[in-house]
């Protein structure tokens, strides 16, 4: 036992020793060392070194791993038919012209002339048809569903093609056209098992010239890119898993940018003067107080509304996010998105909360009952959020205790088997959705529809509202932008009034980088700086 004690002491001492000299840590991986730094003007960099948190496989459409930054890196190597601009409005990319009939069924496109694959072969309409057909036949979690509404693609000639849909898709230009990468037919035509295929020949601004699994990637600029040569000649990517090690490497100059968003408390040490700077913008992930709408007394909309009134979300943003976040809209939609309804607003009013609770008869029945607020133990920001909410709710007479659980246990209580029709077993829980569930308007049906079997696949609180059911069904087949916005506005008003959950905040993206190496980053709202527009200009 004494020996064990001694080793534990030693480990502890080592921890402190490493704390005392953070700058002396060796870099976690070999940077692209034979390329010299361009001290230059901060626009045309020769080489850039970036840290990513984990291995992304061979980075083709079937082998990339994460939604972020994997998908973003994938789209530096492959192109999409359309491209989202800084405000997430789809703009023509591989195509110059497009037309659509009034029902939104038949779409005609003309490709850019002279686009080539990395191996020199021309990119034609045949490749577009091949790609969408291929994703339809070879199942992939992201692409297959996205192309499911495509009935047929007709090739007219090398550059012209038309897409025929089986039903109108409201955001067709965003998904699939701005999301699904185009793959070369001459390479993929005989591939029957894409999950084990490692080729990564694309048409994008960068091509992979070197890949050492679990260590580095080297991307080289595609000099023949149809929109001109990309601004950075070479991107070296090193895999650094640990957050502290990542930003230590950035500080000492071993890397020039980190793909991961920085924690707000570090901003003061990296922003402004000095060799590093930050770029920030809105993020579309959400942090929610999820309420079990099925369970007494939370099945009463008055009680849920009282909970919403009791929570000081501005305080949460200022304290937990140190101001680097946007306060949640009660209509769930982020204020920087086009379909946001500015008429809905979160109201913090503890007195009204008390009145509402009295009206609902809450105090008589549940005044002494203690509710559990669940949160993931491995996410300190969520634990802190839960602790602050518990104080808010206790102040209006709802007794809440915070329970930190490991994420698997939490998921099992809130969203058993990731199937909302399997029921749920919790009172309140801190929850969050990723950015795609915020951006894609069709997902609103998933979040709020009461048919848990088929439509409400993300409705983990079992929220029920007939008007919301009707409106979300309508939005999934509406192509008229005016009518779409009308439905969105109505939906957000109903959600704000009936409170399926409380939207707390949307954390900002904070990206730290070294401006001396490269300073021409483009922040795409909700997506960050890792996108084509940071390296190539919009046509």
């Amino acid at each position, binding site marked *: 036992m*004494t020996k064990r004690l001694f080793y534990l002491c030693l480990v502890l001492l080592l921890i402190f020793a490493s704390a005392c000299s953070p700058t002396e840590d060796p870099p976690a991986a070999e940077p692209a060392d034979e390329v010299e730094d361009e001290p230059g003007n901060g626009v045309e960099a020769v080489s850039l070194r970036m840290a990513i948190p984990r291995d992304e496989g061979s980075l083709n459409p079937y082998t990339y791993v994460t939604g972020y930054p994997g998908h973003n890196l994938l789209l530096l190597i492959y192109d999409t038919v359309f491209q989202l601009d800084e405000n997430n409005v789809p703009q023509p990319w591989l195509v110059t012209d497009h037309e659509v009939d009034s029902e939104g069924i038949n779409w005609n496109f003309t490709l850019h002339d002279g686009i080539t694959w990395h191996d020199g072969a021309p990119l034609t309409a045949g490749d577009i048809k091949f790609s969408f057909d291929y994703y339809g036949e070879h199942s992939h979690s992201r692409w297959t569903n996205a192309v499911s509404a495509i009935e047929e693609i007709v090739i007219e000639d090398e550059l012209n093609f038309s897409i025929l849909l089986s039903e109108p898709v409201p955001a067709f230009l965003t998904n699939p056209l701005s999301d699904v990468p185009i793959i070369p037919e001459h390479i993929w035509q005989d591939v029957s098992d894409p999950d084990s295929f490692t080729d990564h020949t694309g048409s994008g601004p960068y091509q992979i010239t070197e890949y050492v699994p679990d260590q580095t990637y080297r991307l080289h600029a595609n000099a023949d890119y149809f929109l001109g040569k990309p601004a950075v000649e070479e991107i070296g990517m090193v895999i650094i898993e640990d957050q502290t090690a990542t930003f230590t490497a950035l500080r000492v100059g071993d890397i020039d940018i980190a793909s991961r968003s920085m924690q707000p*408390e*570090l901003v003061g040490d990296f922003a402004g003067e000095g060799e590093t700077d930050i770029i920030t913008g809105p993020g579309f992930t959400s942090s929610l107080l999820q309420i079990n709408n099925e369970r007494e007394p939370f099945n009463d909309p008055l009680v849920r509304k009282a909970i919403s009134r009791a929570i000081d979300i501005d305080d949460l943003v200022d304290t937990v996010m140190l101001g680097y976040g946007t306060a949640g809209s009660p209509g769930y939609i982020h204020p920087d998105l086009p379909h946001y309804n500015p008429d809905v607003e979160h109201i913090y009013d503890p007195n009204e909360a008390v009145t509402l609770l009295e009206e609902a008869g809450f105090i008589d029945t549940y005044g002494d009952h203690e509710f559990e607020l669940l949160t993931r133990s491995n996410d300190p920001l969520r634990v802190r959020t839960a602790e602050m909410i518990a104080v808010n709710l206790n102040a209006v007479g709802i007794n809440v205790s915070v329970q930190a659980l490991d994420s698997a246990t939490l998921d099992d209580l809130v969203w058993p088997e990731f199937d909302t029709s399997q029921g749920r077993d919790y009172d309140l829980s801190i929850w969050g959705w990723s950015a795609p569930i915020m951006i894609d308007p069709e997902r609103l049906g998933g979040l709020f529809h009461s048919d848990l079997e088929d439509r409400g696949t993300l409705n983990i609180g079992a929220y029920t509202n007939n008007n919301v059911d009707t409106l979300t069904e309508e939005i999934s087949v509406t192509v008229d932008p005016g009518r779409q916005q009308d439905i969105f506005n109505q939906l957000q008003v109903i959600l704000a009034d009936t409170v399926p959950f409380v939207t707390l905040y949307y954390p900002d993206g904070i990206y730290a980088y070294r401006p001396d190496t490269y300073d021409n980053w483009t922040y795409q709202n909700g997506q960050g700086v890792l996108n084509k527009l940071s390296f190539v200009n919009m046509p």
Partner: protein
Amino acid sequence: MSPKGMLKAIMKNRTGRIGIILLALIVFTAIFAPWLAPFDPYERVAQPFQHPSASHLLGTNDIGQDILSEMIWGTRISLSIGIIAAAIAITLGTAIGILSGYYRRWLDTILMRFVDVVLVIPFLPLMILLAAYLGPQLTNIIIVIGILTWAGPARVIRSQVLSIRELGYVQAARSLGGTDFKIMIRHILPGVMPIALAQFIRAVSTVILIESSLAFLGLGDPTAKSWGTVLYYAQTRGAFLTGAWVWWVLPPGLLITFTVLAFAFTGYTLEEILNPRLRSAGPHHRVFFNSEAVEKNRG
């Protein structure tokens, strides 16, 4: 030896004296935490991430709670975890040690081989695995630590029982027809109590260290303000990257170190007093991590 006599003997030894004084300070802090702490550690009293100032001597943490108050209350929580988990371990260890040493034969063989198995299991990895599997509630952590640290004490206590059971008064009780249960409780247990106490004191320090390690790794209960939890938040909220480690990492680290030392010094001195084999080594052999002591513990 009476408790008073034991204390006197410890105070005669320099190492023991340091241990007892540190221990008294720590226990005092734990008991009087509400009066000593300038703020409620659960209340947000200032802006987050404040540097040390006159009103907050160790600054504030990531949501604006006073770190000094967290330290003082943390004494209470870390100490409670240590004492409860060590009590579980020693109770188990004593029970198994007495059964094994008293009955001997096949029961002794089975129990001691089982102890061997528990002793050779890689300790920290198993602990991490169990903590992750059972979930991060404080009670689970305490139970996990408790049921994984009983084996060493069980072995030490068994060897003591082996000699006690041959003593005249135990033999006498047995020949007068005393039941096994009665003999174990009335005659053997009092005999092993001093050794159990020494083992207990040493176990507390181990437990505090283990709990801090688990909490630091994010496997503890993040809502319980132990010293390890404070370290966890310091680490996850960038204290190692900013200058904040000076007031956010060093204080809990030093407190853990001093507490572990206090218990280890006291426990070691006590063991030395109770075990003539160690005492005969003379003052210049009184190193803290005596190899002989290790041998003894491992049986």
